């Protein structure tokens, strides 16, 4: 992937869960974000931690919700999420100071971050106990919400019925592991 890829091309790559594209974006804006976070009094360690979480949240929205940015760039969106996470952290630590300036370029992007259920946490641990092909087909269907036809297109399954059959077997296996708890 070229660093000169346009924003729209990068968005396509992010939606297709391309990790290399995500890493390029991560490296590209990291220093600028750490400088931005300094305004809020954050040290490099905390700022990096927040930047990583912002990248992860952005990745989730592109992959899971198939986000399409029409009125902002990836950078603006990323920094908007980063700002939300910085302010959230400072509010939790009760150290929020009014540091908004006239030059403030980024609008806070509020994220809905529900606490996952205990069942989901336990299930997540078992995802490493199933085969790679099972994990893949379940992830494509339940996490990325690809239709059966789309799964056929991005994998080597020969048709939709094979996808349905494999997915059903994999879900059964995952549930059987879960029941053993």
């Amino acid at each position, binding site marked *: 992937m070229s660093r000169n890829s346009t924003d729209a091309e990068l968005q396509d790559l992010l939606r297709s869960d391309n990790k290399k594209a995500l890493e390029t974006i991560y490296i590209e804006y990291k220093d600028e974000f750490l400088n931005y976070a300094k305004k809020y009094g954050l040290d490099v360690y905390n700022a990096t931690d927040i930047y990583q979480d912002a*990248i992860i949240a952005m990745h989730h929205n592109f992959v899971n919700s198939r986000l399409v940015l029409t009125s902002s760039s990836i950078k603006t969106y990323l920094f908007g999420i980063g700002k939300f996470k910085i302010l959230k952290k400072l509010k939790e630590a009760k150290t929020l100071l009014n540091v908004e300036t006239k030059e403030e370029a980024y609008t806070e992007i509020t994220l809905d971050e529900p606490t996952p259920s205990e069942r989901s946490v336990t299930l*997540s641990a078992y995802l490493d106990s199933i085969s790679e092909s099972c994990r893949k087909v379940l992830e494509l269907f339940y996490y990325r919400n690809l239709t059966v036809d789309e799964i056929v297109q991005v994998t080597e399954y020969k048709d939709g019925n094979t996808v349905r059959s494999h997915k059903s077997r994999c879900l059964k296996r995952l549930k059987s592991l879960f029941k053993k708890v």
Partner: protein
Amino acid sequence: MNKEEFIQDYIANRLSEEETARAETLLKSDAELQALYETHQELAAAFKISNDKALKQRLQALDSTSDEPELTSNVKKKNNFKIFSRLAIAAIFIVGAFIVFNQFTASEDLFDSYFEVCPNTYLPVTRGTTNQDVTFEAFKAYESTNYLQAEIAFKGLLANEDNLSIRFYYAMSLLNQEKFDLALNELNTLTTKTFDYQAESLWYAALIALEKGNSEAVKNQLGKLQELNPNYKSAEVQKILEKLP
């Protein structure tokens, strides 16, 4: 469209306004649909937790590869050697124990990785035909993934005539219901016979052996398959053999 796919479309906002309203009404009254909705949401959340964790580690590793200074001190190198040698010894024991205790699970995973329903290539079934022939009905049930009905129909056919291809699809109908032992019994009668599905019989017999964690039987069946037809699933055969203990 089945209920799972309907729920997926609802969650992914792919339904029309009318369909969305219908889905919301059904979710209040249809217990099966509610359960499918909950499963979908729980799995999506589970994948988010797992993927976020993996991505965090990936980003941290990306930082550490670009930031970490090289160690040049001899003392540090010696200490590192001691630590690494101890870690290596520990790793050998852990890996050994892991292989022993997880051989069965790993085999099951391999089975899932390579198992695909064998398509009907014996008697093509075309929608809309009026042929009521029993063989046709058996394959129609097989193609509709109604494997129990296919099993009964193929068994009926075999009572009148011992057709090797029909016996193969009888075995496939059993296998697709996870009746592994019964399927293997049938396949074992076929793997030595020369007929259209001999390679397939060896392949699925090997997969069942994988599922049961019987590595020697897997090697034996795949070896025979390679001798019979080196081109059949050659890449998959090679990968399985490499992964076997």
